[in-house]
Structures are given as structure tokens and as C-alpha cells.
């Protein structure tokens, strides 16, 4: 366990020191600054627009961080053969994978806390700039939305680790992660179209099975997207966060354990 924790810590520090992280943070800062200007283009629902932009900025910059930095933290070890140094230590390959995951997880939490605090500033100022009695905004739901973004990013990190465990180059795992992200965010909408059965074009039963299969195989990232609820202060169904956490726990656990199993059987040239 100590080995896992110290590897997590090393991974976290390595991530923090990454220059790409500064670039991503500067981009996020610029976007928060732009939010204040952009809200002037709207008439009434100014807080809603500020919340939309702030949450999208956290989500997007977090995504860049996980996809590029998270991916490089693991794949770099394999690409640059530094993994030999790690796996020759008294640390199992499974522990190595879990350590990497916890390191990236810590990085995600630190980044989201930082971005979350910064993002609340434009939202706060937007609320001061124009009093709209019909606009409903609740900080609690905004806070939940940020927590769910952090969970989504950690889930994507686990997917990255899973792909890195069997691909030979970091580029392939990067591409696979991006594909999984796109499928993960849209799978629920596609399944919704299928279930609604209102479309003019007939969908074959086989296609139906494929869509359902993809829906259960890939993570349903829409679960972690409550931006619309946050920007309009809409109440979440009872137990929503709890069930999202349960889903997250199992999916992340499965991804990282699968990666650990594959890594254990993998042969390095």
C-alpha cells in the first residue's frame, strides 16, 4: 500500500510540474475573463450564461489535462522505457497501475478545486451585475456540478489507463480515449432516439442491439453532466448524486482492475 501511495504522490508531483498544465490553466483563466465580457451580450439570463461558460471551462480544461497530461504520465513510462525501472522495484504491476491512477486522481481533484474557486468569481459578479427575479440559481447545485465534473475526469483518466495498458504507443491510447469520450457523452442521446421510436427512418434490430451494447460498454458520461440543472438551479432527483457515485465507483474500479490484469500479463520488449 505504501508503494502505491508513494507512486501516486510521485505521479501527482510530476503532473503538477508539467508545463502543459500551466498552459491549460492560462487558457482557463482567459476563458473566465472572457465570461464576464460575453455575458454582456445577453439580456436577462446573465447568471445562467456565466454558469454555462464557467462549468464548460472547468470541464473542457480538465478534459485537456486528463487526456494529454494523464495520458503522458503513464504512456511516457512505456514509450521511454522508464517502466523497467519501476517494475524492477518491489512493486507489482497491479500496484503500479493503481498508483498511477491515484496520482492522476489527485491531480484532477487539485485542478478542479483550483478551477472551481476561480470559476465562481465570474458567476458571483454576473449575479451582482443584474438582478433578475425570475432567475433561480443555487450555489449548492453549482457545487454538485463541479464535484460531478471531477468524477467524470477521474473516470476518463481510468479509461486512459485502461487503453494505455495494452497499446504500444501513447498516441493510440490518446485517440482511443478521445473516441471513448465522444461516444460516452453522446451514447445516452443516441439511445434516447432509439427508445423514443419517433424517427422517420426505420432502425434495424441489429443496430438496436449495437447501440444498446455500446451504451452499456462505454461510460455514460451524461450522468456527470448536470450543467443545465446548475445554470437554472433545478433540483436534482433524490439520490441522484449517490447513484452517480455508485456507478462511477464500479466503472472506475473495473477499468483500473482490468488495466492491472492486462499489465500483469504484458510482455515488454
Amino acid at each position, binding site marked *: 500500500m505504501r508503494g502505491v501511495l508513494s507512486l501516486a504522490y510521485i505521479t501527482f508531483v510530476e503532473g503538477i510540474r508539467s508545463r502543459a498544465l500551466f498552459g491549460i490553466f492560462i487558457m482557463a483563466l482567459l476563458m473566465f475573463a472572457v465570461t464576464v465580457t460575453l455575458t454582456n451580450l445577453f439580456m436577462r439570463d446573465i447568471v445562467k450564461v456565466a454558469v454555462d461558460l464557467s462549468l464548460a471551462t472547468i470541464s473542457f480544461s480538465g478534459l485537456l489535462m486528463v487526456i494529454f497530461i494523464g495520458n503522458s504520465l503513464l504512456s511516457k513510462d512505456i514509450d521511454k522505457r522508464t517502466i523497467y525501472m519501476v517494475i524492477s522495484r518491489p512493486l507489482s504491476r497491479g500496484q503500479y497501475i493503481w498508483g498511477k491512477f491515484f496520482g492522476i486522481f489527485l491531480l484532477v481533484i487539485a485542478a478542479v478545486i483550483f478551477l472551481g474557486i476561480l470559476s465562481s468569481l465570474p458567476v458571483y459578479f454576473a449575479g451582482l451585475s443584474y438582478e433578475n427575479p425570475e432567475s433561480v440559481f443555487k450555489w449548492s447545485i453549482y457545487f454538485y456540478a463541479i464535484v460531478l465534473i471531477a468524477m467524470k475526469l477521474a473516470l476518463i483518466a481510468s479509461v486512459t489507463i485502461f487503453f494505455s495498458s495494452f497499446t504500444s504507443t501513447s498516441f493510440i491510447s490518446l485517440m482511443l480515449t478521445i473516441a471513448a469520450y465522444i461516444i460516452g457523452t453522446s451514447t445516452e*442521446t443516441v439511445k434516447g432516439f432509439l427508445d423514443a421510436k419517433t424517427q422517420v427512418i426505420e432502425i434495424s434490430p441489429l443496430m438496436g442491439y449495437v447501440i444498446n451494447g455500446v451504451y452499456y460498454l462505454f461510460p455514460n458520461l451524461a450522468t456527470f453532466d448536470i450543467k443545465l440543472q446548475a445554470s437554472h438551479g433545478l433540483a436534482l432527483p433524490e439520490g441522484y448524486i449517490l447513484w452517480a457515485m455508485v456507478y462511477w465507483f464500479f466503472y472506475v474500479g473495473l477499468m483500473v482492475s482490468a488495466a492491472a490484469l492486462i499489465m500483469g500479463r504484458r510482455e515488454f520488449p
Partner: protein
Amino acid sequence: MNHRFIMVPLFILLIIGYILVLPSYESSRNAIRVEEVKGLTLPPAIIKLLSLEYRSIAADFLFVRVSQFYGGKIGRMEDATPEDWDWLHRNLDLVTELDPYFQDPYFMGNAFLTWDAGMYDEAEALLLKAVNARPWDWNFPFFIGFNRFFFMGDNKGGADYFLMASERPGAWSFLPALAARLYYEDKRTETAIAFLEKIWQGEKDPRAKSYYAIRLDALSKVLFLEKAIQVYEDRVGLPPVNLQVLVDRRIIKKLPQDPYGGEFYIDKDGTVKSTSKMAHIKKKE
């Protein structure tokens, strides 16, 4: 030769050149952009898929695009064609499909689709989405009520929606009284002015505010003429044949000017109307 002697002047020349080229470049780019602003409206299902998790941002940007297009038209005092109004309606419908809780597109749709485009049914369908999505918001049943009463001549329907609005939090306290007024009598222009004054007071956007101010000005002139006609009828016992008679009889000093650039006249049904139909008339060059 030292490279700096070439590089520095070259750099300065490039900066000057860049600044000089910008205006011509912008105008050539704008020639395309104006055409581009309109164009295809994708079905909501496709945009929902393409916007991934950024659906509400997509709604925001789409709304900015629509409002800039119409802001430009109003600014240039251009007439919008029926196709323009149709495009506006489809896009506002799309924005509210992406984010059904978003207030601004409903406000915009209510302002333009009724007064300017005359698309009352479409406006009502759009506003009904807001009535359902925002059960805490009294503005939208109020707007439907106003449109029913003012544009569609459906006083009872209007009163029903005013009552629905009055039951929602924050609604104007005089709404039930207004509803009652609509149920029993018909003071169309006065009631409309009372509503518009309230809307004008609550409006924050300067563009929309001046838009309502002009409309209020026009309506108060219509009310002024209607009262003068009433005075004429009381004196003569017959309705006037035209508005000029009111000046000839010295009931009013002169005919008021329509802020939209048209001329007021008495319609066949005895009401005062304007040749501008309460929309800006494009100035002839």
C-alpha cells in the same frame, strides 16, 4: 551584413502592412459573413449530438447569432422578409430545444414574432414551452395572455392566462384586476399601454427598452386620437369621417406624428390605425 539590419525593418514594414491591409480584408470577409449569418438550421437532434456535453453553451451562442442578426436589421431599420421571420422562429425554437429553461430566447420571440412578424400562433407555441419548462416564472403566461387579448382579440383566453400568471410567484399584483377588466369590458388601447409601461419599466436591455418606448409613444398617440374621436361623437352624434375633421373642429390642434413614420387613419371598424402598421417604415432614398 548583420541580420538585424534586415529583420528589424522587415518586421516594422510587416506590422505597418498588416494594419493597412486589415480594413480591405475585413470588408471582403464581411461580404461573405453577412451571407453566412443566416443559412441552414440544423435539426435539434443533430445539434444535441454534435454539441456533446456543451449543449447549453451551444444554445447561448446560437442565441447570440440570432440576436446579432436582428439587432443589425433593427439598427439599419431594414424590413425583415417573411423568410427572415421564419428563420428567427426556427432558430429560437432550436435554442429552446437545446435549453428549454433559457429566458432570453422566449423574450426575444415574444417581442418580434408578435409585434413585427404577426406570427401569433408560432409565438404562442414557443411561449407555451416556457410556461411548462419554467413553472416558477409568471412572465410567459402573462405574455400569452397579452397576445391573446391584444393581437388575437381573444379577451377570455387572455384573461385566463393572466390569472394563471397571477398565481405564480412575483407576479404583478394588479393582474387579477386586469383579468377582470378583460372579462367584462374592452378598453383595448388603455390596457395595452398599462401593460407596455410595466414591461418597459422592467426591461434592462437598452435596445429593447427603446423599442418598447417607441411602441408606447405610438400607442399613447392612438389613445389620444381615440379620446378625441369620442369627444367628436359626443358633440356631433356621428363618428368622424376622417381624422382631419378633428383638427377642423378644433378638438385637437394638429394630428400627432406616428413614430414609425406612417400616418394615422380611421379604419373601417372605427379604430385608429397607422399606415406603418406599427413597424418601422424604411426611409426612401
